[in-house]
């Protein structure tokens, strides 16, 4: 059995002729909180979907907990997608029943307790819930599991700063400490304080993978400052021409 929870070798994924990931080699150990950081279109969601089995790699190999993606890896991965996956007819309780049936690590009582603390009524139909409440239900489903790997795709995108803190607090107070949290975002300043490691993705390639302490020590700056430096975009000037600096 491998020491790493996530292993990727020469991972390549393209949509038609456009590459989304180009030769990604990655190793992530257990018990870590890892930020998957990069601008929009850098391949964060593609990498997470490959780990979940929602996409198939064009070439390359990946494993979770030493196994190729399949029923076993899906049983140890808790995935928060960047969209709603509910059927209209369901109630939150129906989803809790479903998760209890399929995931041995799903804690039904914890899900109910989380609903109470988040102000969600689990007997309400999902159809009648607001977008924010549905997002809370989805967060409850993910965090009520004692998974080995949490894959959270942009959990704090599109919400106000107060809600970001609230979501991050929910994640940090409920995740399985023996598991790893892989969290994709481009809002680095909000999550930097909780990260153990950071992975910088740019145009489908890993630019940097290091611990947050190493980054601060070696670069002498915060992860956010380094991110801004690496992903700095040159402004366009009148006439659409780039100005030489």
């Amino acid at each position, binding site marked *: 059995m491998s020491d790493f929870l996530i292993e990727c070798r020469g991972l390549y994924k393209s949509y038609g002729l456009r590459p989304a990931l180009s030769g990604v080699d990655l190793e992530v150990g257990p018990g870590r909180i890892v930020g998957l950081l990069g601008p929009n279109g850098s391949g964060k969601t593609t990498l997470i979907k490959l780990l979940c089995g929602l996409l198939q790699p064009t070439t390359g190999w990946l494993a979770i907990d030493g196994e190729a993606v399949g029923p076993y890896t899906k049983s140890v991965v808790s*995935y928060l997608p960047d969209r709603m996956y509910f059927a209209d007819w369901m109630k939150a309780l129906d989803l809790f029943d479903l998760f209890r049936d399929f*995931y041995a690590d799903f804690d039904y009582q914890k899900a109910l307790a989380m609903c109470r603390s988040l102000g969600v009524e689990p007997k309400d139909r999902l159809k009648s819930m607001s977008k924010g409440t549905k997002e809370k239900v989805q967060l409850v489903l993910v965090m009520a599991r004692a998974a080995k790997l949490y894959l959270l795709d942009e959990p704090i995108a599109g919400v106000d700063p107060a809600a970001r803190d609230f979501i991050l607090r929910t994640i940090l107070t409920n995740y399985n400490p023996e598991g790893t949290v892989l969290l994709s975002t481009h809002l680095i300043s909000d999550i930097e304080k909780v990260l153990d490691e950071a992975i910088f993705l740019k145009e489908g390639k890993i630019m940097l993978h290091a611990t947050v302490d190493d980054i601060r020590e070696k670069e002498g700056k915060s992860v956010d400052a380094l991110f801004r430096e690496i992903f700095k975009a040159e402004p366009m000037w009148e006439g659409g021409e780039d100005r030489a600096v």
Partner: protein
Amino acid sequence: MLFKLLKYDFRAMWKQFSLVWGAALVLALVNRFSIFVDADDRAVHLRNSFVSSVPMFAFMAVIIAMFVIGIIFVINRFSKGLLGDEGYLMHTLPVRSWELVASKLICGAVTWVGCSAVSFLSALVMLPLNLSDLLQVPFWSDILRALIKHPDMLILVAEFLLMSLSAMVQFIAAIYLAIAIGHLVPRHRKLAGVAAFIGLYILLMNVYGRVFSATFIQRLMDMATANAYGSMLTASATMLIPAALFLAAVCWILEHKLNLE
């Protein structure tokens, strides 16, 4: 895991169809009393008025709607449930692709059988049958005696039902494969799915045309004359073999080419 998947698929089916099935049966009962008038002499007369035609029209509309919803349900449970947003949930469950497909297929087939059964029952409810006549013991003992005398009738009925079910499974499998093929193309997936469905049936007819030569069909007809059981089982097999191939192709696409972009 298949039974757990079926539990949720059947729950979705029940949520969708309980109302329409109930409406069909209630309207059939209304029609029974709005179309037919029970006279004092135990005879039944037809009521001829505009009032009686309104519930009949509503009943026909519900029956047509039920079958249309049935077809849409089978398509949506597969396309949205496995290849749309709900696929983000279904494909992250710790199950094999074949279990997801089998669950949708069984639920789809049961839905169509349910719709057919409700139509049949509605027709029975509408008929001006006398309940006291139906509950008489001699009536049922005659039927039972006839069945004991000709038990092959039951086998023939069972084989006919199996043949109908095979045709249904083949049709659903072709729909699934067409949707899965449409999913492989980056744009205009629905259009590609429709084209794939037409293409699949053209292919199927061509294969049938080549395999089932005139001599083969003549033999089948001879067999039907000599042994009706064998001919219906052969017909079922000829429909189930391509259905199995279609479903295997669907599972392969979901296992190796899934692309929930």
